[in-house]
């Protein structure tokens, strides 16, 4: 397995480990692209802290900066890294133990 997948998933999970970054990503996911000022108005986080988190998220490739109105930079969520992390979660969520127990119960108790 190429190491890049882990690197991408790790960035997603470290981003999500911080409540402020989670709130920023959630705001971008639900409301669409926004400037740092928009986010500061909507979230109980200072403008300075938002700028710091956006820089980090941008470096990790989780948001992308694009030109907005009046020369403001808007940030947009990038879903591709989230999908990579989701694959990791899918492996953890696949519950063969419960399914196979159900199969055993079905065969051994219905006979």
């Amino acid at each position: 397995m190429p190491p890049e997948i882990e690197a991408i998933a790790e960035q997603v999970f470290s981003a999500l480990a911080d409540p402020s970054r989670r709130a920023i990503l959630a705001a971008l996911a639900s409301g669409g692209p926004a400037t740092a000022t928009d986010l500061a108005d909507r979230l109980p986080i200072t403008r300075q802290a938002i700028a710091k988190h956006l820089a980090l998220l941008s470096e990790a490739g989780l948001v992308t900066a694009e030109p907005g109105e009046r020369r403001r930079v808007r940030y947009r969520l990038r879903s591709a890294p989230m999908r990579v992390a989701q694959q990791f979660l899918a492996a953890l969520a696949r519950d063969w133990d419960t399914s196979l127990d159900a199969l055993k119960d079905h065969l051994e108790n219905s006979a």
Partner: protein
Amino acid sequence: MGFPDRIERTVEIAHSPAKVWAAITTADGLAAWFGDEASIDLRPGGAAKLTWTGGPTVDIRVERVEEPTVFAFTWPIYGLTDDDPRRTYVEFTLEPSGAGTRLRVVESGFAQLPEDAYRKAYDGNTEGWMKELGELVDYLDAA
């Protein structure tokens, strides 16, 4: 971190391979322990469907049918979008064990990524909704 590509389990079941085979390859069998509703066209390339009440419906493609020892299928990776081409491969192997059956299930492919996924995950990708919304606007404009 350790990204698992493969899940492997073995269970001993106190029933013959023929009974286990029926439980994992027939609609009635699958609906009894796996999904809440099931349908299956049991041949390589055949379609199967598993539905969970109040949950998802999963489209399955049958890959291997070698009664009564190997049954395999592919299905979508849970959590990815419906149009995502990635699927995991699930293979059941049945082996007589005393009066019963040793059933092994291997699901692999969780760590796969298609060729362009690295590029997508690393580089800018601002398509998606912008494209969808553009199409909606075109559609409304044309109406």
